[in-house]
């Protein structure tokens, strides 16, 4: 076993500091060490996106990144996106438009979609399909996920306009 490393992270606004083996994967840190179980494991090979989190403003599959590589980073998981009293428009839209079934892909989907809409607040259907292609859903066939993201985008844009 190799020497442990000193790692600092900020996850959902909270500072975390711990010693970990260099081989510790970030998804393991989140789920096992920090008890943040929203991000899921579906493949551990970067294909399914169930483990998607946001790291320093980018969508990242946390199953194929070492915790040590994230040292010093700011990380947002589904748990940091909204809360019961203040849901993110995507969280509301996924329920409203039946954008989930078993819910296993949902945290990764919504986390990815927050970034997609930041990068492109008015995506076409094609842009959504392309931008979400790193996240696999086995249940919904995507149609209602697309609908949910479109609805959330409309909602967010309307709110922005109203605020301006």
């Amino acid at each position: 076993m190799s020497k442990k490393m000193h790692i600092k992270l900020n996850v959902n606004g909270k500072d975390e500091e711990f010693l970990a083996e260099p081989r510790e994967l970030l998804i393991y840190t989140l789920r096992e060490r920090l008890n943040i179980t929203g991000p899921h494991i579906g493949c551990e090979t970067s294909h399914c996106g169930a483990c998607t989190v946001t790291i320093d403003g980018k969508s990242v599959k946390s199953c194929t990144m070492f915790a040590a590589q994230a040292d010093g980073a700011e990380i947002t998981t589904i748990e940091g996106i909204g809360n019961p009293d203040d849901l993110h428009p995507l969280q509301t839209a996924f329920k409203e438009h039946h954008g989930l079934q078993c819910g296993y892909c949902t945290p990764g989907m919504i986390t990815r979609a927050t970034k997609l809409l930041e990068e492109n607040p008015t995506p076409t259907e094609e842009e959504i399909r392309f931008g979400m292609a790193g996240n696999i859903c086995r249940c919904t066939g995507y149609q209602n996920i697309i609908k949910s993201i479109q609805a959330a985008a409309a909602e967010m844009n309307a709110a922005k306009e109203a605020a301006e």
Partner: protein
Amino acid sequence: MKDEITREERVDNLKGMGCSRKRVEDARFTQGKGNYVDDIKLDGMLFGDFVRSPYAHARIKSIDTAAALEVPGVLAVLTAADLEPLGLHWMPTLAGDKQMVLADGKVLFQGQEVAYVVAEDRYAAADGIEAVEVEYDELPVIVNPFESLKSDVVLREDLVAEDGSIPDGAHGPRKHPNHIFTWEAGDKDPTEEVIANAEVVATESMYYHRTHPCPLETCGCVASMDKVNGKLTLWGTFQAPHAIRTVVSLISGIEEHNIRVISPDIGGGFGNKVGAYPGYVCSVVASIVTGKPVKWIEDRMDNLMTTAFARDYHMTGKIAATPEGKITGLQCHVTADHGGFDACADPTKFPAGFMNICTGSYDIPTAHLSVDGVYTNKAPGGVSYRCSFRVTEAVYFIERMIEVLAIKLDMDAAELRRINFIKKEQFPYTAALGWEYDSGDYHTAWDKALKTVDYEGLRAEQAQRVEDFKAGKTRKLMGIGLSFFTEIVGAGPVKNCDILGLGMFDSCEIRIHPTGSAIARLGTISQGQGHATTFAQILASEIGLPADSITIEEGDTDTAPYGLGTYGSRSTPVAGAATAMAGRKIRAKAQMIAAYLLEVHDNDVEFDVDRFVVKGAPEKFKTMKEIAFAAYNQAIPGIEPGLEAVSYYDPPNMTYPFGAYVCVMDIDVDTGVPEIRRFYALDDCGTRINPMIIEGQVHGGLTEALAVALGQEIAYDDMGNVKTGTLMDFFLPTAWEVPNYETDFTVTPSPHHPIGAKGVGESPHVGGVPCFSNAVQDAFRPFGNTHTNMPHDHWRIWRTANELGLHG
């Protein structure tokens, strides 16, 4: 008392059957607060994982665990030798065979469980696995079932007597050491006679490739043996928690009341999570041995390689008809590759599932089916991947045979279907292979589908496209895929459906609270189907309390009534019926209470939405809420306090959902890439409980159908190596590859189901696979294609084009 709101508003307030109620499950899932098995953490919990065989067929010379036990964090390593004294080195399968829990002297497929390492965490377990030394002696590998039946390599020595004779298997005589069973339905001689004398006979052989349900969450469990109380708790991804409890009790000897099985949230099942796997047994043993909770979670490779493949049917068909296209007979033979152990999850009397629904939606007077199950060096399983026990195979078979016959007759395939459909007035209809179809109106559905897509217009466009292609104006062909399917779901009547002797009824228990809310518990378990939402809707309509005031609970065997779980689209047909029946018992008691409160005779009150009213005097009523309160708090002569009911429902028959699908596809002959231009799906699932959820099921099922038809497979090389062990090679469509689907419906309620519902979760998969496949094949029909095997991935489509000489 004056009514404040209209009757219509009262109906709306209930959010009962027929409305697109939003799902109650979604709040937790959208906020990352689901509770899946891998989210469970217990004090001192250990982690178990397997040493797996790299060989598909080998003898094990030795297993050395000494070095592994030295690895920091490793607590124990289990091998078959450790399990043998407990009698747990083998376990019964759902199909009446037995399966090694840990390799007992030999391995029969790549990835087979050889030893189980128990460690403090996953990393230590992985280190331990590396350190276990296993010496193998390779044996000849058989991955082809036809060769297996001719080979003198015996795969299962345990199934051959010492004198070399072959004892009967669970399903009767076996004709070769590698043969599992022969199963037949229908009449052989008359069918052969019809075929021999027919004016037209079309023959085709097709391979329905091996694939895998691959839910996004893999299988797993947490076993916790509490030695103080003698109680075992087992959390896991179980589609049938009660059946798992009974099986665990039978094989471990722990009494059933001391076992609590809990299915927490499940991240999709699609058949993968019906069976009992070595991981469950080893985790239980490890927890008993260490006195600590033990978790086992498959990784994706374990999942694809070892638990629950689907399909792998080699099918040969003969279909006889008159020159006008009236079908007169059908014969089907299947060589079924079951892998190293027969672990198919089928009702006991049906070793090939409901393959005998393969006469489809057609009035075929004579038919015969025979299926031979065969052992090979492939993983065991044979589960129903989003279908009811091999119905997908059956529907694929008949929907391909229809197309092949249409080619032979030079007839339009839509018209050929129409003239052979079972007519509305023929229901209930007894098919040549034995099933009694409860209801159907196929012509109406077909006509509606063809009209909506402008079928004739599509054919004209396709003809033009062929012209253009021949003239060099385009490199894209157009395919029109048709399918009309009849499913058989809702297993099933206890008289002919059981698994391991457990009757396939289901159950619901309702408890109404004094203030007019309720909890209902069922023997099923949702894996994304939204039971907490839809079963509350059934109840709301039956008992007149708002769905929002009804909690649905499933999956905990200590609290839920016994049931056989969720697969084969059986939840709505069986547990949904139990729910309605339990609701009616509540209503019957409520009626007596209402009559007492209103001071009239029981027969003088009637149910109206959310209340009982005095007949002819609707202003005199008691709401169900008031009745609930009175049930608990008012002394009513002759009536026990409380308002509860339980119902165990043994369905009188299966249900038979059906549907009409059309797919329009453009195929680039130079790249082999198919582009789905349009997909229209008409489903008739009887009474519709929640249209939003039905549509969601259709979208999801069609996407899984697309995957299977267009690329998804579990492939082996000749050495028995799995070539598709990760999501790199195993095709799961992304949002980029999937079209938008148009959904539609007709409603033909099931006559024997209390609310007329038939189940829908699997229809789109069952009907979708032949529809996508037929679209590909139809594109090449004008160039001489009769049949090509799935999966139609880009390379295979390109190859078809190439073989037909379309690359110039």
